[in-house]
């Protein structure tokens, strides 16, 4: 006669067998995503930066962010780090006497801190509700406050510490650079690049920016060269394509080539980022972490999707628990006598 216990035991065995056959199919690895071909981004050249913070001021203005005070007099916007209300910040590397710009010892150097717009963003991967999205065309990592549930997984996930939560508000949102995508339709590009007087922050297609960065690395330090400012035009850009963007088309000027470290930060890091950086000081010293070409999002999603694909892990865990439970259960017949007393 089939008891209730036998029925359950049969179900479990069947489930485990089914799971075992499903596992090889779902455990497929996810590759690191690559930049879309028309990806937009920035090129930040620390050797051109003069630390005027025009980009910080412009960013605050176009994103309607309030000033943040860290000094007692509360006169100047002096954020110490990016925050829910500061999406872009120029930080400074300091060493010794701080005499020479872009020198690693006894020098100082500037570094822009803002969203890198990763090809394979960890924040998008970690977001449980798709409030963090990556635009399939421009590659801009955007944020949708209406979809956000405030879990702040993106804050923990980002290797650059960029998405920040507005802890000062009961209805706080995530604050981060979205490459001024809300201004793109009016023909405005990233405000930080628009106002940069030296072209240290340059806006354009990441592909063109990468070529420009490599051109600079190939030049001899101290040599005079033409540096673009504002927006870097795509090679062979037609007047029609240029008309999409406002502002002067050609703001080139002559400047001296910096003593770069031979590395374009963001070319391969985590599968590449859309914001690229050049520096004369080692990148790790100016707060840019050393990242492998394989994105963390690819690793974690491979593990997660393998484990949860076809409910494999829940079933396996249930089977294991049941087995342990069964082993520890004392059979009814054993305590029949005791039960009668």
């Amino acid at each position, binding site marked *: 006669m089939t008891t209730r216990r036998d029925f359950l035991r049969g179900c479990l065995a069947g489930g485990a067998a089914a799971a075992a056959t499903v596992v090889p199919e779902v455990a497929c690895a996810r590759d690191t995503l690559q930049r879309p071909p028309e990806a937009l981004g920035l090129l930040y050249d620390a050797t051109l930066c003069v630390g005027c913070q025009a980009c910080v*001021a412009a960013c605050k203005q176009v994103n309607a962010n309030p000033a943040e005070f860290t000094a007692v007099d509360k006169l100047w916007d002096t954020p110490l780090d990016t925050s829910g209300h500061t999406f872009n910040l120029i930080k400074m*590397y300091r060493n010794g006497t*701080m005499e020479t710009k872009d020198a690693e010892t006894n020098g100082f150097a500037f570094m822009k801190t803002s969203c890198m717009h990763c090809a394979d963003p960890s924040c998008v991967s970690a977001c449980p509700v798709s409030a963090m999205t990556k635009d399939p065309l421009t590659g801009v990592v955007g944020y949708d406050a209406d979809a956000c549930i405030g879990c702040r997984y993106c804050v923990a996930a980002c290797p650059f510490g960029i998405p920040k939560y507005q802890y000062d508000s009961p209805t706080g949102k995530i604050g981060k650079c979205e490459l001024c995508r809300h201004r793109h339709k009016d023909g405005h590009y990233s405000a930080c690049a628009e106002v940069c*007087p030296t072209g240290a922050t340059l806006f354009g297609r990441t592909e063109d920016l990468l070529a420009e960065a490599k051109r600079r690395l190939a030049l001899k330090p101290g040599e005079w060269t033409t540096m673009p400012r504002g927006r870097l035009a795509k090679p062979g850009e037609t007047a029609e394509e240029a008309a999409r963007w406002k502002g002067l088309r050609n703001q080139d000027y002559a400047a*001296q080539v910096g003593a770069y470290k031979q590395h374009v930060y963001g070319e391969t890091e985590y599968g590449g980022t859309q914001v690229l950086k050049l520096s004369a000081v080692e990148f790790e010293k100016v707060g840019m972490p050393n990242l492998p070409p394989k994105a963390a999002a690819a690793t974690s999603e491979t593990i997660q999707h393998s484990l949860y694909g076809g409910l494999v892990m829940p079933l396996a865990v249930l089977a294991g628990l049941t087995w342990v439970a069964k082993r520890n259960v004392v059979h009814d017949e054993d305590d029949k006598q005791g039960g009668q007393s």
Partner: protein
Amino acid sequence: MANTSLIQLENNPQIDAAAERLSMSRREFLQFCAALATTLGLPQGADAAVAEAVATKKRPSVIWLHFQECTGCSESILRAEHPTLEKLILDIISLDYHETLFAAAGHQVEAARHAAMRENKGQYILVVEGAIPTRDNGVYCKIGGKTALELLKECAADAAAVIAIGSCASWGGMPSTGPNPTGASSVDKVLGKPVVTIPGCPPNPYNFLTTVVHFLTFGALPAVDHLGRPKFAYSRLIHENCERRAHFDAGRFAMEFGDDGHRKGYCLYKLGCKGPETYANCSVILFGDAGAGTWPVACGHPCIGCTEQGVGFEKPIHAMAKLKNIEPSAFLPRIVEEKGMGASLGSAAVLAAVAGAAAGAGAMVAKNLGLSHQAEEMERAKQEASTSARSEG
């Protein structure tokens, strides 16, 4: 320093006489002296010293030579307004030789120069305007049959001080730009010794006047930088005190002449303003005594860097300036900014005490858990034993 109190100059007839000589009221005269002292960056009380010196000392004899130049420097000096320059050059200094301003001509004026040099040997101030052509033995500039080279060496030999006025005299200026067919050179190179330079095209008259009055008051020329420029006027970048600086910091730039930003008075850096690499006080004392807005940048033209060798007349006007004032800012955050502070000794002690108490309490509870159960069991066993004994009994 001589006198340091204006009160001591009260009822001083010499001050009144000096004021009258300069066609000023006594009050205006003292204000003028205070203004010169302030331009020099002198401490409080220096105005009295300047006033006393101007009123009492013998007017220094000045010999002014013109070489390869446009006379713009002299024109600039003529447009100083307080006091008007004719008063200054006739009454504060004794301008004994100046080719443009002299009424006399020919042998007469050359005789005046020789007379002044003889009478004030080792006492006079030599002011040189214009570059000195050196190629082909300096034949490209001759006055009274003498080349500029000869004239300069002759006049400089017995001068108490030599002042090179204008960019041409200071480093060669415009005449020395390539290909420099006349071999135009500067006063210090020709004389082979450093001189005080007042570069500018033209220089601000007050920088010159203040230098002269400094010499008059203290018997020595003011402190100069490595290029011979008086530090009181040429130690600050134009960019540092520019009225448009706020626009630079906020990233608001005029992009083209006549565009919206240009009309609104935005920063001219992107139009090629050389303010960030030019040392001068134009942005502080302005030009021409006509009130605010009277210097190139205020008028909407980028600074051309006329006081800076290698910038003025050499870099194209549209070319971008190299920012010389990139210095570590106190405002910029570090790469990793420490936030909050570590635990204080007091808070650590309190925490340790709480943790210790919790751990102790936990241990006691854990110990007693088993004990109470055991006690209950023993109690029940005792009761059962007594009931069974009773029932048996």
